[in-house]
């Protein structure tokens, strides 16, 4: 008997709700097969069987459980039931989709997929689950040659496969889908665009990145400049930093900037608190800290909630231009894109400059066109004249002259 307990799912999560049993008591589960879905107030987690055996559930759907509580037991001594065909391996786990079985025999028997003794050893050593191998032997038995070929198949998939795969949406995917659709349907969302000449920032970086790293111990990236520029613009256009709540508008006198980060289980948006009060180095350090935690799935719920504005960077994946979707209850989101050398006209001359297109999607219900466009222009100005970040966007000369 192997006990399955509620695993630690996040730093500040103490309780989870058992959303759904995907298997029931008495079912034979394969190793790594999905057995249940757990929900916290923020996200959904899937739990897979640690070993193969007969499942005995120890709690019911809807139960609230503490971390470490007993969820289920797996009887590892139980034999795989006769006649039950091992489930096709989760293709998502397969290294290459080409490994998916082809020409699956339709008349499977109790012996289908049984590896011959030599085949069993070869597959174990290759780390291939016999369920992933289509046996060519009698009644679908896996022969030694099948096992020897098993790896090659991934590389040389000569047979063109035309099969559809139906897979149930995970609860996490369902939540994401619901929220995105709601943001589309329940806001008056539109997008304004602009372009940024990245040369000044790139020059600055090239000149000082070593010194910066030496002084602050973090790399100087673009994220700190964008965050800082956004904070300057948010303070000039408070509606962009506001929430719409029924018939009220909630203004924030602080800028909590959510940063979209690609994590193993999907997109997460950790928050940089009071970004307006942080230096470039402090922002870089915070971005680094949150990104590392995101990649290790260690972000706490608290670290992912309560942002007032979001920055998303599709540029890292090569996007030229896109229209991001607002992250409710926030009212606007800035989309960064890739930096491409383009021919632009400056002072009557065609020059080559590193250009990034930027996009601001906003909720027109509370943000007027003047504000949104003004906001994006402000961001552009701050990025093209980084010293403006020091003066909260005011022309330093005017500041000097007191006008």
């Amino acid at each position, binding site marked *: 008997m192997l006990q399955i307990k509620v695993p630690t799912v996040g730093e500040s999560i103490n309780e989870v709700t058992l959303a759904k049993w995907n298997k029931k008591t008495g079912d034979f589960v394969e190793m790594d097969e999905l057995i249940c879905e757990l929900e916290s107030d923020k996200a959904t987690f899937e739990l897979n069987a640690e070993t193969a055996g007969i499942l005995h559930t120890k709690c019911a759907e809807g139960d609230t459980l503490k971390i470490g509580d007993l969820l289920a037991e797996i009887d590892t001594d139980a034999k795989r039931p*006769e*006649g039950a065909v091992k489930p096709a391996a989760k293709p998502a786990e397969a290294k290459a989709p080409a490994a998916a079985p082809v020409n699956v025999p339709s008349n499977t028997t109790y012996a289908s997929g049984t590896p*011959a*003794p030599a085949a069993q*050893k070869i597959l*174990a*050593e290759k780390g291939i689950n016999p369920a992933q191998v289509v046996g060519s032997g009698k009644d679908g038995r896996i022969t030694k040659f099948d096992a020897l070929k098993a790896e090659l198949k991934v590389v040389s998939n000569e047979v063109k496969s035309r099969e559809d795969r139906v897979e149930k949406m995970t609860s996490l995917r369902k939540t994401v889908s619901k929220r995105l659709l709601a943001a589309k349907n329940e806001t008056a969302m539109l997008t304004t665009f602009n372009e940024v000449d990245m040369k000044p920032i790139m020059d600055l970086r090239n000149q000082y990145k070593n010194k910066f790293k030496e002084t602050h111990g973090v790399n100087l990236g673009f994220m700190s400049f964008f965050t800082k520029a956004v904070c300057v613009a948010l303070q000039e256009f408070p509606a962009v930093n506001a929430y719409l709540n029924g018939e009220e508008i909630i203004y924030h006198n602080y800028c909590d900037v959510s940063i979209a980060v690609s994590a193993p289980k999907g997109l997460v948006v950790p928050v940089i608190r009071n970004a307006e009060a942080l230096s470039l180095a402090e922002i870089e350090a915070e971005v680094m800290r949150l990104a590392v935690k995101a990649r290790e799935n260690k972000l706490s719920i608290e670290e992912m909630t309560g942002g007032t504005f979001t920055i998303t960077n599709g540029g890292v994946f090569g996007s030229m231009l896109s229209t991001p979707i607002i992250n409710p209850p926030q009212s606007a989101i800035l989309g960064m894109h890739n930096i491409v050398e383009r021919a632009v006209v400056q002072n009557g001359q065609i020059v080559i400059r590193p250009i990034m297109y930027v996009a601001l999607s906003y909720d027109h219900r509370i943000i007027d066109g003047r504000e949104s466009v003004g906001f994006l222009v402000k961001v552009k100005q701050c990025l093209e004249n980084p010293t403006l970040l020091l003066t909260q966007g005011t022309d330093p000369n005017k500041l000097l002259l007191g006008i």
Partner: protein
Amino acid sequence: MKYDVTVIGSGPGGYVAAIRCAQLGFKTALIEKYNTLGGTCLNVGCIPSKALLDSSEHFHNAGHTFKAHGIDIKELEVNLPQMIERKNGVVKITCDGIDFLMKKNKIDVYKGLGSFVNKNTIKVSGETEQQIETDKVIIATGSKPSTLPGLTIDKDRIITSTEALNMKEIPKHLIIIGGGVIGLELGSVYARLGSKVSVIEYTNTIIPTMDGTLSKELQRSLRKLGFEFFFSHKVKSAKSDGKMVTVTADNEKGEEVTFSGDYCLVSVGRKAYTAGLNLEAAGVVLDERGRIATNHHLETNIQGIYAIGDVVKGAMLAHKAEEEGVFVAETMAGQKPHINYNLIPGVVYTWPEVAGVGATEEELKKSGKKYKVGSFPMRALGRARASMDIDGLVKILADEETDEVLGVHMIGPRVADLIAEAVVAMEFRASAEDIARMSHAHPTYAEAVKEAALAATGNRAIHV
């Protein structure tokens, strides 16, 4: 000297492990405390007992079936010293064969008692004393005959299988305590040579771990040979006056009964043998039954020290030990071998021979599994009648729904060889019909397997 692997014990588990280690490129040492390699199996077990079983069976046939075959012999008599000497010759050739295999595989053989100094150092105490360093160790020290409380084995009149293989005379009345494989095989030898044989057994059956049909059939055959069985008897003592042995036991009613014979063979099982290994120095622990405790990789509680064969859990069979020897060697080399313990056949070399693999009918009944039975008698085979070996049958148990073969049980001539077909079939999870549809040469004993498979498939054996 420093070795990658040191094997302690040169029985069928140990020497096979050593060869596989050498094949895999390990620098290998083998330690044996006796003068000859091969362990119990080659020296005082499987091989010598088969030699005597075959000799005595020839004698038995000469006296009982030759006449019918048209061979008349006058003044037939046993030359026991020659029989023992031929047996010793067989043992010597077989043991020399192991010496050759060790040389061929460049395995260093150390003669002497191997004992741990620490987990990587082993002292060999033989004619000289030396220490060898080793990265890994395989313990393959096997087992020794066990005894009962109240019984002192004097190796003269009250003997174990070892002495029974080197008798100076044919017992007039051999009392055998224990109706297991060893007792029945050695009892057969002397029953054929003319001894009166009495088997005293604690349970109510012989070969209790095998399918009930087999023990019933074997009992019948042995009774024909002159065996007498006393079941549900609890032996309390055995005393020898130098000429006669008196065995006292309680019968099934609790009444005291005595047996008197000139020899008493104690064959009540074997126990794991670890004496002299000094396991404490390495920190290796035993289980509650005195066997070396191992995990599913056959590794002991100490990393790098493995144990195989009779000294660990499982059936005490040479072929089980061999599989484990290969398994451990390959595991140490990073491979991922597997042993299907359910498919290690059990065999008894009486005549008729007995063999079985997979689930017994009793086990299937207990598990509640629905199964079909197909049975075929040897006497219906042309081959059996031609050789006058008509005792026995083959029984195949198959899943009622899937027809998968779940167990195969046989008694008859050469079934210890025939069982291999069943093991192959079951390793590949063949159905009874699969076996039934394969061509079996005619006329052979193996036809009984095909016919039993036909019977199990759908009660359609051809020749009954």
